């Protein structure tokens, strides 16, 4: 009688997580390597976009596409702006905790309400959610500064040291991005079986004892919290919380970063954000043509790389990689849990 093969303890963090967190640590070095404001600004925008796109990545693990990222970015951003301007809180750790917790807590009642919805209904409701959030920002004048937004946020301090110039702002963004990615990596790795089961066959998962809605609600709240951190980073860069930074249509950008980058892995979100944000900046020089060129790029990427950029990379390594492709095949399967879409 054969014995059960020993299950090789999969490492807590997969290679994709380690590579991603490593790249983010590199981003910390950028402010020390260069003073060039464009590189600093570019890195800022990429890191903010990537952190926001995490909100999409986390929910995609359960095949739920969320348009709600801008709404929770707004919650995080305005929370920080109010604390900074009205109650003089500038310590970065307090602000980051506030941005994360307030967004996550806001997501709890909403999550309970909409997480019973499947597939396209989840997409539609999160789209409506972001439209409502935008309207609330305008209507709640006394609280959110209405259409003028909240202006003149004091610079953030780290242990009392004021972080005012470009490179300081990038350090704050890099820190927030690292924390966001760490939280997302820990969540998606620790619960990779649960999320994959919900995505592949939630009826079977429940029959085995998995309370799917609890994990969906948890993921929705954590995704909201991470988006709140991205909102904090954006407001810190602009020193202003302004409604136009959180427009409903921007939700489509964050979804594009996660999917075109490769929804199968957390590295895909970072790569997608890096490439597409740079493309947007490059196209901006073309004036009127910029949205059209961006649209064309997305169509081409979607047709050419169904698995996103990461999918292309994986196929490339598989075809030329010397390692036994079967092992990579199964590792990738568990890693990405990329079942049917």
């Amino acid at each position: 009688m054969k014995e059960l093969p020993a299950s090789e303890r999969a490492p807590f963090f997969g290679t994709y997580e380690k590579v991603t967190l490593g790249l983010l640590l590199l981003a910390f070095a950028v402010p020390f390597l260069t003073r060039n404001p464009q590189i600093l600004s570019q890195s800022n925008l990429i890191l903010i976009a990537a952190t926001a796109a995490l909100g999409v990545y986390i929910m995609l693990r359960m095949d739920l596409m969320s348009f709600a990222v801008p709404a929770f970015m707004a919650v995080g951003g305005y929370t920080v702006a109010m604390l900074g301007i009205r109650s003089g809180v500038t310590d970065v750790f307090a602000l980051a905790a506030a941005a994360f917790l307030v967004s996550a807590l806001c997501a709890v009642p909403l999550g309970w309400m909409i997480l019973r919805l499947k597939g396209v209904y989840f997409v539609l409701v999160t789209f409506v959610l972001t439209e409502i959030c935008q309207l609330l920002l305008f209507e709640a004048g006394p609280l959110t500064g209405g259409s003028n937004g909240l202006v003149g946020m004091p610079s953030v301090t780290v242990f009392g040291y004021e972080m005012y110039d470009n490179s300081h702002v990038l350090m704050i963004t890099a820190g927030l991005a690292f924390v966001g990615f760490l939280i997302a990596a820990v969540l998606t790795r620790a619960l990779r079986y649960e999320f994959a089961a919900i995505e592949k066959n939630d009826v079977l998962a429940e029959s085995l004892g998995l309370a799917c809605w609890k994990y969906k609600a948890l993921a929705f709240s954590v995704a909201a919290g991470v988006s709140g951190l991205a909102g904090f980073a954006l407001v810190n860069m602009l020193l202003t919380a302004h409604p136009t930074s959180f427009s409903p249509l921007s939700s489509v950008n964050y979804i594009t970063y996660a999917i075109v980058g490769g929804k199968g892995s957390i590295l895909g979100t970072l790569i997608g954000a890096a490439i597409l944000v740079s493309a947007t900046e490059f196209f901006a020089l073309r004036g009127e043509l910029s949205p059209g060129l961006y649209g064309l790029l997305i169509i081409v990427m979607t047709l050419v790389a169904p698995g996103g950029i990461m999918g292309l990379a994986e196929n490339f390594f598989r075809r030329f990689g010397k390692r036994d492709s079967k092992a990579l095949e199964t590792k990738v399967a568990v890693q990405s849990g990329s079942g049917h879409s």
Partner: protein
Amino acid sequence: MKISIGRLLCGTVLASAALIGGATACELKVGVPAVLSGPAAQWGIALRGAMEFAAKEAMEEKRIVINGVPCTVSVMPIDTKYTAEGAASAMNAFAAANIKVIVGPVGSPEVTGMKPVAKRNRMVAMVNSFAKNSIGPEWPTVFHIGPGPSGWAGPIIDEGLKRFKFKSVAIVAPNDQGGTDIASVNAQIFKAKGVAPTEEYYQRGTTNFAPIVTRMLAAKPDAIDLASSPAGDAGIIVKQLRQAGFNGPIFRLGGPGTEEIARVAGGYDVLKDFLWFEPIAMDDNTRALEKKYEKLMGAPRPENADFFRWVFAARMTLKAIQAAQSIDDAEKISAAMRKLPVEDEHIGKGHWIGQKFFGINQEMSYPFAIGIIEGGKQQPYKRADAVKEG
């Protein structure tokens, strides 16, 4: 160690001049953060056209000569997408190309996004935006290109009171920054003129204004003010007001775009009695400016009348650079700018205003015109002198 370029050129090959790093040629680069996509694209295109014209004019007529060396003027336009972070990232791109002179942006959200970056990188900027906080003492190197409604609303309302009788007005505008700031200023000035105002806001992106029109007419206003509603929206509102049976005078106390409003509404007879702020009094001088643009640029000027205000602003900026004899010191250029008289060879003389409204005297006020349509027929523009500090 200044070596005049003339001697260098005749003595040695240009390449070697670059090598020994003598007084290099003077290259002024001007950053233009302009909205070039989306609903507000027409205003960004007018800004870009004006700056490119002013740059070419300055080079051909050698208007900027710094210690004997005539400067080349290059323009770098970037699409800001009418958002705060779009403007901020454009400004950072300019900072990276060590551009210190900015002309633009157009809209309130963009100005909100670009000011912190201008301050951090010590840039001088000439901005539009009708927001109440577009300029202020905390941004000493930021100038405003022209009077907001606080400047020219009064004279236009007086002109309207002369021709039409109205005791109440309904002001309509989008509920974002560009709308609310202006509508509230217009309301104050109407009240000061003895006309009872009501304000009505709509969500930007509304396509059919029949409900809004019905709500406004419920208050039975004698007149309507379109304030800063975008031209497309304003055109629909006028068309639907007339369809609903409103026959009173309509004001447009906000940005330009009357031609477009007339086209969307269906012609001057639909506008019927219409008064608006025209940035420039079209006369022989300004028509000469249009011809000069066509000669220099080989194409007709951008249609949006904001073009003239941006030409005024661009030329003032270039004059300040010439006066300050510096292409990158924001403080020196700003100081020179404050001392310059507010005038333009085609557009006429004006004044520095803004102390009362903004707390800093850095808003240029120059002669403008009051556009009038009466009984469906366009009347000649009524030239109005530059508004002085009240």
